């Protein structure tokens, strides 16, 4: 577990204890207590109650939820997080399949990307890229948890070729291929995609449709 997960558990646990104490024993219990000496400050019963209430209702829960959100956003980068939704199982199974020749599987088995493989290709670079990937993640979450989607899923919009070029452009193997220079303008404009020649990136929609020979193998739980 990450640091933020531990913070969520620790601070959240403390919030639960304080909250339950206030709820079960009631405010009169703290208001009746004798003044508590904190260094040079003496807290009356009412002041103690207000201080405990501030921590139980505002400070600690905000810290708990804040840590949970950081954990959620950082954890969402992992392949396991993507595999948390069954609609992504075909992509994850294919990614890990050494026999697969899809673009994603080739990147995985050659270790072109070291971890967080889905996030690397499906988020743009820089702050805007990270922000739009997170907003897109929230949209996916709404659609998945409310069931507003159709299987097999399809990608919304076009894949940003800049995500490929950011790593490949300028490398020796890339520059050695003449067709890359011929297509460079169309790739930059977005009228041509890398997958036109090197695709498909993932199992096709027909392979992800019930009845297809690949369907059962792709739909097993990868976790």
């Amino acid at each position: 577990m990450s640091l933020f997960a531990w913070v969520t558990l620790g601070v959240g646990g403390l919030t639960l204890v304080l909250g339950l104490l206030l709820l079960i024993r009631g405010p009169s219990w703290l208001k009746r207590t004798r003044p508590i000496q904190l260094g040079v400050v003496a807290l009356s019963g009412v002041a103690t109650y207000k201080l405990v209430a501030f921590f139980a209702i505002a400070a600690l829960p905000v810290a708990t939820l804040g840590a949970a959100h950081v954990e959620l956003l950082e954890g969402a980068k992992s392949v396991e997080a993507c595999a948390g939704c069954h609609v992504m199982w075909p992509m994850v199974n294919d990614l890990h399949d050494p026999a697969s020749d899809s673009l994603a599987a080739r990147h995985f088995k050659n270790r072109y990307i070291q971890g967080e493989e889905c996030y690397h290709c499906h988020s743009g670079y820089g702050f805007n890229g990270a922000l739009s990937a997170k907003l897109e993640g929230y949209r996916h979450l709404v659609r998945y948890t409310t069931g507003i989607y159709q299987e097999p899923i399809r990608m919304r919009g076009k894949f940003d070729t800049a995500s490929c070029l950011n790593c490949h452009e300028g490398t020796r193997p890339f520059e050695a291929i003449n067709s890359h220079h011929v297509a460079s303008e169309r790739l930059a404009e977005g009228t041509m995609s890398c997958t036109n020649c090197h695709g498909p990136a993932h199992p096709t929609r027909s392979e992800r449709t019930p009845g297809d020979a690949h369907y059962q193998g792709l739909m097993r739980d990868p976790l």
Partner: protein
Amino acid sequence: MKLEIVLTLVAVLIAIGFVLSRNAYLMGATVFVATPLLVVAVVYYLARVIRELRDHDVL
């Protein structure tokens, strides 16, 4: 202050549940249920604090 405490406890329980058992539904509950509940609780709490400060002529 019972309402604020209950809302807070529910929100924190959901967040703890998500950290212990990561799945899309608890992730969704943390974002779309727990966070709004906590916002409501904090707003109610702040309104109470401001009201009390006004009663004591501090604000």
